[in-house]
Every structure is written in structure tokens, then in C-alpha cells.
């Protein structure tokens, strides 16, 4: 059933500057739902975070998962990697991990008498960077170039990573000993930050009843090729964004810089990230255009790691989620499209 998706294609081509057609949007939604259902076999009752991760993948961004141990961060990453028929790798970040362990290394081949590049685990379609905050800042920084630019430069030679390319990083918020907090610049490279959270009661019981399944990620079979992912990404970029929505995003960014307890508001890159993900989210809903509700839904995962609160917020018990809620309240969403005079 799920594989039927692989046999379908959008009915029209996707050219730059074109607007997504209704048929294409419906095709996109069907594919997206198939993938989400497929991943849902591994993570029970976590539809929202699954859809967020898929949105991140199709928006060509990277996902940071921050949650307590045992909540299914790695499971989510593996499920996403498994659902795509492409290469994937896992890097367990440790304090002694070197940058070359991530990017790869150039070694001398005595037989040929030449230097050869041995690519690291980063050269895969989906890379799981487990417990990224345990690696040294130097190693973390090694990820910067590849996440932002999609290539690695070793010994003066640039090596492109495959497409699609997505880094899913996880980190533990409670065990801070021996960890290195990701700098803001590094955080900004992640399109979204989310958490998995505990499953609900029904999902927990179902999980326990099927405890004989040792690795639920193995249940997730690849149903989408990298070509399909690329095509869906191209289609998502064609979703229409009305000027009023753009204005809304701009107003949110400006308001975020004025909010109490916010030391650093939303950057231009953050605005771009928000617009990218809402387009994919709209397509996943089978729509050809973004609506304000998309912005409100995705504001927290896109903005939460980009807003820097002042120390007073911590003392006052104000969380980033509170601040984002206030931000959305302070800026009314558009009720009509911008007039096209």
C-alpha cells in the first residue's frame, strides 16, 4: 500500500516561478501522509513531531531534537532515515570525536602515490548526529559548512554531499556535565528544533504490549526515493505565499525584537526559514497557498532556538514557548490578502 506512493508522480512538471497546482498539492499530501504513516510505525502517537521532521526534510533543512533520554529522539531520526530509500549514517558524538571523524580524511596511497579522500559519515543523505552537544566545539563547528553550504572542504579540496542531505541532531537537556552547548550560530543552522515528549497513555500501553519488537525502527521500510524527496522539495518551493503572509512574518520578526525578556530576536535567516517551512507544511496539507495558521503552528519549532532570552526570564520562569505565545498574540494575523493594485 505504502509503496504505491513511489509509483505516482506529480501530474505536471515543476518549473521555477510556477505556482503549485491543486493536483500537485494533492499528490504532495498523499506522499507526505504515506511517509508519516510509515514513520508512525516506529513512533506511536507522535504524529505532530513526525510531520515536523518530514517538513524539515522536504524543506531541505536540518532538525535538532532536544529531549530527555528514552523519549525516542534517535528512534525518530532512524525512522526518518529508514523511510527514505537512500544512504544514512549515524554519528555518536563524544568529547574525543575529531572533525575528521565527521567530514572524512585525506590519506596517502603508497601504491598509487597519490592522496585520496576517504569521506566521513557526513557523506550520506540523512545523518543522525546523536548527542551532538557531547562533541567539542571544534568538531561541532565542522558541521557548520556542510549544513549551511552542502559541501566539505578538506585539504583545500571541496567535496559535495549528496542530495537530499539532512542532519538530525539530538541532545539531552538534563545531563549537562561534559557537554558543550551549541553556539547561536550553530543553532541557527538548524531549520527546526523540537522535542518528542512522552507518549500518551494509549500509545504507551500499545508500546508495552508490543515489547517483543526489539527495534521498532526496523519496521520502517523505505518508501520514498531520494529523487522523490527532491521532487517534493521542488514542489514545496512553488507553494504560493501571499504578500500579507510575508508582512505577517516580517511583523512577527520585528515584534520579537521588542518583546520583554528577549535579548536576541528573529533574524532575517529565521524569517526565511519560517517561510520555507510553512510552504512545505501547506503543501503537506494539500493546499497550494500558505495560510496564517501555518505560520502560527510552525512558529514555535522554527523560532524557539532562535530567540535568546535574557537572564531575568530564567529567574521569572518565563520560557521560550511563553514568549512565542505572547509574540503571536501581539501581532494579529492577516484576515485578507494584500491588495494587488
Amino acid at each position, binding site marked *: 500500500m505504502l509503496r504505491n506512493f513511489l509509483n505516482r508522480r506529480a501530474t505536471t512538471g515543476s518549473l521555477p516561478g510556477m505556482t503549485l497546482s491543486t493536483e500537485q498539492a494533492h499528490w504532495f499530501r498523499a506522499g507526505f501522509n504515506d511517509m508519516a504513516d510509515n514513520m508512525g510505525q516506529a513512533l506511536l502517537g507522535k504524529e505532530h513531531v513526525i510531520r515536523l521532521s518530514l517538513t524539515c526534510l522536504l524543506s531541505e533543512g536540518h532538525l535538532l531534537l532536544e529531549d530527555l533520554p528514552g523519549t525516542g529522539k534517535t528512534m525518530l531520526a532512524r525512522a526518518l532515515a529508514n523511510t527514505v530509500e537512500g544512504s544514512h549514517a549515524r554519528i555518536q558524538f563524544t568529547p574525543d570525536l575529531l572533525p575528521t571523524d565527521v567530514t572524512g580524511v585525506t590519506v596517502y596511497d603508497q601504491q598509487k602515490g597519490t592522496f585520496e579522500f576517504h569521506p566521513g559519515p557526513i557523506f550520506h543523505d540523512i545523518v543522525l548526529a546523536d548527542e551532538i552537544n557531547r562533541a567539542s566545539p571544534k568538531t561541532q563547528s565542522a558541521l557548520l559548512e556542510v549544513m549551511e553550504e552542502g559541501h566539505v572542504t578538506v585539504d583545500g579540496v571541496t567535496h559535495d554531499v549528496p542530495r537530499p542531505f539532512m542532519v538530525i541532531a539530538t541532545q539531552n537537556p538534563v545531563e549537562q556535565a561534559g557537554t558543550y552547548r551549541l553556539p547561536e550560530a550553530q543553532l541557527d543552522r538548524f531549520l527546526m528544533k523540537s522535542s518528542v515528549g512522552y507518549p500518551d497513555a494509549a500509545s504507551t500501553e500499545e508500546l508495552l504490549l508490543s515489547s517483543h519488537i526489539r527495534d521498532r525502527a526496523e519496521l520502517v521500510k523505505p518508501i520514498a526515493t531520494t529523487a522523490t524527496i527532491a521532487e517534493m522539495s521542488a514542489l514545496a518551493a512553488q507553494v504560493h505565499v501571499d504578500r*500579507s503572509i510575508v508582512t505577517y512574518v516580517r511583523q512577527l520578526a520585528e515584534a520579537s525584537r521588542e518583546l520583554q525578556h528577549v535579548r536576541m530576536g528573529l533574524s532575517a535567516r529565521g524569517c526565511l526559514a519560517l517561510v520555507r517551512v510553512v510552504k512545505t507544511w501547506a503543501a503537506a496539507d494539500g493546499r497550494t497557498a500558505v*495560510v496564517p*495558521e501555518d505560520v502560527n503552528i510552525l512558529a514555535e519549532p522554527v523560532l524557539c532556538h532562535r530567540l535568546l532570552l535574557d537572564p531575568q526570564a530564567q529567574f521569572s520562569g*518565563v520560557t521560550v514557548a511563553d514568549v512565542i505565545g505572547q509574540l503571536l*498574540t501581539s501581532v494579529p494575523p*492577516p484576515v485578507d490578502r494584500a491588495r494587488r493594485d
Partner: protein
Amino acid sequence: MQSFHVWDLLLVFGLTAIALVGWESTFRGPGWWIAGGLAALTGIVVAMAVVSARGGVEIVTLVLLVGYYLVSGPIVDGTLRLDGLRTLESGVRANSEGWSILLGTHPPIDASGAVLIAPVLLSLTSAGVGAALALRSRRAATPLVPPTLMLGAVLLLAQPEPVSVLLQGVGYGTLAMLWMRLRGLRIDEAAHGRDPARGWRLVGSVALVVVVALVAGLLASTSPPGERLLLSRSLAPYQVQKLSTPLDEFRDYTRQQGRTEGNVFESKLFVVEGAPAGARLRLAALDTYDGSSWQADNDTDPTRQDDRFLRLSSTIENPSSGKERKITVRPTPRYTQPWVPTIGALRSFQFLGSARPDAQSHLRYNPATQTAVMDDRLEKGDAYLFTSGLTGGLLKQRMSPSDELDTDLYDRAAFLQPAVESWAAGAKYPMQALFQVAARLKEVGRYSSGTEPWESVYRPGHGEQRLGDGFVLGVPTVGDDEQYASAMALLATRLGIPARVVVGAVVPKSGTVRGKDVQAWVEIRIENGSWRTLPTETFMGRKPPDRGSPEPEPRSFPPFEPPAPEPGEEPEAEEPQVDEPSEDAEADASSGVPWRLVLLALLVLLVAAIPLAKLVRRRRRLAARAVTARYAGAWRELVDRARDLGTPVPGGLTRPAEARAMAASDGDRGDGDGDAGALLTLAGEADARIFGADEPAPADAAAFWALVRDRRSGLAADVPLRRRVWAVFSPASLRPPPPPDDSV
């Protein structure tokens, strides 16, 4: 605005002008058409301005009505000088009084003051709303509605005689039909493209309308217009029958021994200038009899429409063949009656400078009886000048009586039937019988006003008892003008001859009328409809009664036996007529601003304002120029309905969030599960259409409105009736919504 709209506006103005002309016979002076014409032009300009600012017909109406109330004060005052609240008060008072003055005044009405409210308001709304409809409506006939309503209103409010059947009927109809056809063709063309046979259709329509107009014109010119409905006929006239008449108090004008209070026998009552000596000056013409007294009344002449005591402007249409005289009357303080002395048929009337400023507003006049009366009383200084045609003349025996007999009065006079049959025996024709009866009355009668102490048995009054057993049917027959005139008028009526009693005075050479000059006489209606005076000397002599006359006993009328009076029976004492206190209260109330009415109007306005504002809001949302705005408006309509029903929907939410808030509230009532999905679907549909790349089709927006209407009705399905009723008047949706509770 396109070029053809100019024609629309011109035709709206033309039709309004034709309707306005209907008042030509109602008003006097140019004020009414100047005010009406300016109001029509103003209405059109306001409509153009509001429509060009994308305002709807409701806005135009609102602006016109608000503007009207603001300017009605200066219109009534006739000056642009504003005097703060007093100017506004003038306008408010005029709006409550102007209509009753218009309906309750004999034409032509002076075109100034409060009565101008009618042409201004009707012209303003007819032209303004008509112009707005012509500019906004896509229906051919809709713009015709305001001018046609105005035409109907003018016909209802105006006088019986239409100004011009051709102009108001045929002219208006022709213009209206042609305009409607032209608009219809234009609208069809806009909807379905140019009609190849447009020219032929137009020519055919014009030809058809012209033929119909010609036929209608011929019919109108050959057949007189029938009686039509007039609002003035349904308005209650001045209740003159409640007044005490000079006939009731006739002994105040006669010499009385030892009783001086109220007696004006020797007193100077008024001075008349300009009237020929011997002219009959009338105080009151009394044309109904209820068994106890003669009274003046309204609607007693079946041949006239104006036989009512109505207000009087400076002039009145009162045709008469008599010579016109200009007469001045100056009442003295001794004259305390409300009855206004006049001579002949009035043509103009005005109080002089010494009179009270508002004296004219207290004046009522009945042209059928040529009687004027004040609704309070004539006061010292209330001098007045009038022109009138001298009418009347003495009755001759050769004249024929009118057939317009008051049958009620005939029945009332039945108690005098024995005398009529006996005294009229042998007469060959009615007028001969009348003079014969008059002569018999004079023959048997004696004259006394009860002046001497021994004459006190001859009591005043003219009830059935006094006129029957105590006068005509008894012996001796003693009385004064009161009894003679009353009895003679009843005897004439019983003979089948229309008669009435008139109290007045014959103007002496000096022009000074004293109490002793007041007398009562009888007027008889003759065949040509005019009234002639029955010479008093024909039925009343001055022979005094014999001192020591025997006790009254029944007169014998062979061959009829008169009914014998019961021994010791006293004539029934007549109760003095007193004005009902409510009259005074009403008079006091009408002297100030009608605050109760104003408060009531404000209350009604307040109650109606909220539903009206919501209606306007809905119409604006529905008719928004941008189709996406119609989607947004439809959704807002749904949210506003929920707020009016008491559902807390905070502001600043996206549509799906609002849908969830509404569904959550429904869920609290236990029926929200089914609604949530429908509401979310509607919200999603609105968002998708509004923020989509393509412009949605108007038909889709209309379909969305239909869906919203269904859902809107569904919102109230499980709400208590009280809450649903309150929702209509609730201002909740008109207020800014509360912000969502999500502050740090």
C-alpha cells in the same frame, strides 16, 4: 460614475419633482418648492458622494436622515443662524408637530415653519435614496420605489383635489415606465452582451408606453377623479362639541335682575371695523342637537370635505359670491368666549400685532358653518383682521329647501311632532309650512329672559323638556332667543327642512357690539346648498308674558292629544358644560418640547440602531468589491454571530483558531463535536480562497455565504430562546473583541 448614470440622476430628480408638485394646491407661497427642490438636489449630491466612497444605500439613508435632523431646525426657523439647543429643539418639535399641522390645516397652508418638514423630508429621501439605488442597484425598477412612495405619500397628505391628473398620473407613469425600460435594457446588455435588436426593442417600448399614456390621458380628461383616501380625513379634528356654546349661556347676554357675575348685557364685547351696519356677525353656528343642547360639530355637511374645525393659515379657499370686505375685530376683556366673531365666508385671516404671537396656532375654522373658534379663548389684545365675502340673506317663502336633511336631527325633533302636524296643517309645500309654523309659534309665544323675579319660572335651557312641555307643547309659551331659535330650528327640521341655530349679533352703526346686541337666529338651507336666515320676526315676538299667568299646562293640538305632564314634574336641570381637564393637560403638554415623544423616539432609535448597524455591516461584507473580502466578511459574520450568542471568541486569532474556540464553546453545551469539523472546514476554505494565488469567483463567494448562513443558523440551534432574542440586540460583536489570554 458612468455617463448613463447622469440620466438616471436626472430622472430621479424629475420624478421627485412631479411628486412634489402634488402639493401645489396645498401650500401657499414659493417656500415649499424651493425647500423641496433644494432637498432633492442635496439628496442626489449626498447619494453620489456616498456611493463614490463605496457606501451602500443604507449609508446614504443614514447620512440623509442624520443630516435632515440637523438641518430641520434652521429650516423651520427660516434662518441659518444657529441658536444652540434651541435650534435643535425647533427641529425636533417641528418633526412632531409639522405633520399634524399639515393634515389639520385648511388649504392653502403658508409654506413656512414646521410644515416645510414634509416636502423637505420626502424630497430628500426620495431623490437621495432613489439616486443611490439608481447608482448601486442592478434591478431595473428598484430606483423607482422611493419617488413612487413619495408620490403616494403626497397624494395621501395633500388636499382632495389633485393638482393635475395628467401630470401626476399619466406624466409620472410614462416617465417611470420609460426609465424602467431603459434601465432594463442596459442591465440586460451588461449581463448578456449587446442585444442586436436593441434599437427596435427600444422603439417598440417607447411606442407602447406612448400609446398607453395617450389612452390614460384621454380617460383621465373625460372622467372626473373619484374620491380618494386622504390622511386628513382620518385625523381627528378639533373636538368642538365639548365646548359650551353662547346659546347655553344666552342669559349672560340678557338683562338679569340681581345677577351680575358673568352677565355682559351692558358690557362692550368687541369693536367691529369695516363691517356694514346690520351685517350679521356670527359667534357660533350650531348644527347638531343631542336632546339637551344645540352644539357645533365636525363632519355635519355631507356635501363638503372641509366641514371640519381645522387650523387656518393666513388664507383659505372659501369661494363665495358676496362682496369682499376687510373687517377688523378688537375683543375687549369682557368677551371671554372661545368663539371668534366673524362675518361671512373667510378668505384671509390674521391676528394683528397686539395679539399673542401664537394666537394663529390656536385658531380653528369650519368653512361649512363659517364658525371660528380658539382652542383656548380670545384674550384681550387678540385683535384680528379678516377679509370675507358677505353671504347669506333672508329666507323667502318662494325658495325651496335643500334635500340634505340630517336624519339624526330629524329623529331628535320627534318630540315636537304634535305641534308640527297641527301648526303646519293645510300647507301646500314645505316652505309654506315653515312660515306657517313660525307664525303660529310667534302667535302663541311670549318673550321673557326671566328678568323680573316673577318671571324666574321661565328658566333658561333648550333641552327637550324645556322646549317641549315647557315651551312649544305647553301653555304659556314663554322664552327668549335661546328657546325660540332652538325650537324653531327643530320644528323646521321636523318639517324636513335643514336648519341650524346661529348665535351672533347684528352689527350696530357704531361698530361696538355689546351683550345686549347678541341674539340667536335660525338658518335654513335652500336648494342651491346655501344657508339663508329665517327672519327672526317671523317666529319670535317681543310681547311679554302676562303677570300672574296660570301654571303651565299642556297645549291642545287638535286633533292630537299632547302628552300630559306629570304633576309637580320639574324641568330637568341641565348640567353646566365644563371643559374636560384633560384638554388643559394636553394643551400644557403641547406647549413645550414633546420630551416623551423625543425620549420614545430615542429609545426606539437606540433599540433599532444595533440591529441596523449589524444589517449594514452584513450588507457591506456581502457586497464588498474584492471577492476575497466577501470570504473574509462571511467568516467574520459567523464569528460575530457566535459572539452575539455569548461565545467567547478572542480577537487576534487565525480563522481555524476561532473555529476551535467556537467549537469548544459548543462542546461545553454538549453539541460541539459535529460542529467543530464543519467550522474548521469553513475556516480552511476561507483561508484557502483568500490567500490563494488566484482570485476566487464571485459565484464561489456567494456559495460560501450560503454555507456560512447555514452554519450561522446552526450556531443558535441549542441556545435558549432568550439568548437568541438578545443576540439580535447584543452589541458584543460591535465591540472590539478581547485579546487572547496569553500574556507573559
